[in-house]
């Protein structure tokens, strides 16, 4: 939190702080708190972004922009939900921003892997995977999976999903409605 700790040694006590406390400290321009947030969240954010964009340099820039945005506008965090979810929201939009002005978006995008069953041994996740919804989702074509992932799981708008996937907005909409139909048929 904004409170001043007077130790000469720079890294004091941040490890014990919750993410929310760290963001509050960042609101008070605490550079050490930002560093702690960075150390905690940079790896998984980078990894998750790398699953959506194969260009590591773009991912790194997007992650850097994410934390720069956190530093400059920490009041965007309103204290509701998880800090990690808020960070992801910024990160995925930062990536979009990186992708938007470039021509060869498609080349840079790694399409979602569509080799089910190769790693079916993940027991912990088996419940989800083998649930009705999971099975139905796995049966969608990669195109449709990508649209569902971008809109439902990543929480992007139609236009943002279109930018991320490098397809027109109309296509996102039509694929989404096709996915909805297929899921409904599989589940009913």
């Amino acid at each position: 939190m904004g409170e001043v700790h007077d130790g000469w040694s720079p890294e004091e006590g941040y490890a014990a702080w919750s993410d929310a406390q760290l963001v509050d400290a960042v609101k008070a321009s605490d550079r050490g708190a930002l560093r702690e947030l960075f150390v905690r969240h940079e790896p998984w954010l980078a990894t998750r972004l790398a699953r959506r964009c194969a260009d590591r340099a773009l991912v790194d820039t997007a992650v850097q922009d994410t934390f720069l945005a956190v530093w400059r506008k920490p009041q965007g965090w309103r204290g509701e939900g998880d800090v990690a979810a808020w960070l992801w929201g910024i990160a995925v939009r930062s990536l979009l921003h990186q992708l938007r002005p470039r021509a060869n978006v498609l080349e840079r995008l790694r399409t979602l892997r569509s080799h089910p069953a190769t790693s079916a041994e993940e027991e912990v996740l088996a419940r989800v995977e083998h649930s009705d919804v999971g099975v139905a989702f796995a049966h969608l074509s990669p195109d449709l999976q990508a649209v569902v992932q971008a809109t439902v799981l990543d929480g992007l708008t139609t236009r943002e999903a279109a930018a991320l996937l490098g397809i027109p907005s109309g296509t996102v909409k039509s694929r989404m409605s096709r996915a909805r139909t297929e899921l409904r048929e599989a589940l009913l």
Partner: protein
Amino acid sequence: MTQTWHADEETLRAWADGSAAPVPAASLEAHLLRCDECRRRVATLAPSASGSDVVRRWDALADRIDRPRSNPLLRLGLATPGLRTAWLASVLLLLTLPVVVSVLDLRLPVFMALAPVAPLAAVALTYGRHAEPAGELALATPTAGLRVVAARAALVAISAVPVGVGVALLLGLPTPVAFGWLLPGAALASLVALAGTTRLDPLVVAASLGSLWAVVVSWPAASRRLPADVVTHLVASAPSQLTALVVALAAIALTIARRDAVAYRRTA
């Protein structure tokens, strides 16, 4: 938030290297948003997330965070409220004065009386005790004294003078009026700068000089002894302007000669 389950290492690794199937991957991603334990483990697994890599990327980020947002000249000249007030006051005065004069169609040489006060006030305020951000510490630096004061006064002049002249011309004030205040203003400002090398308080000197000038210029017209135009033309006339120039140059030369004595007003 309490978690009922944690992803095993295989699952995390498959997700991190991109080989996980879409459904487990999606499930794990949703889980990661609220499980700091699993996030921590991703950090130890991710191929590019070794400690030194994180340090390097943090350094790159820190480099952007620590970049100062304003340039050195502005920091020198406009950093503190005192300096900003001086700058803003003189620019505003020179911006509004011609407007007031032409809108009210004043007969009095108000513009001539007040415009030179702007640079004078600005110079006086740069001597203020609260004007120096680093306080006494600044006195022991090579730039201390006249150089800092001159830089600040110049910054005000650079922005205020074109505004004053420009607006006056734009509103159709006569050219001699629009330009005629510059040298008297410079003379008054230089006298204040000179006062800064003595034990006198520049603010008091500025206030006295400013009032004196305003009264001398506007009184004859106000008391109807002379028409306003005559006073204005008298100020704008070659001999007056030359006198102002001489006073300004002499005061500047004296200030430079006495630059060792330039001091910020301190209570100490």
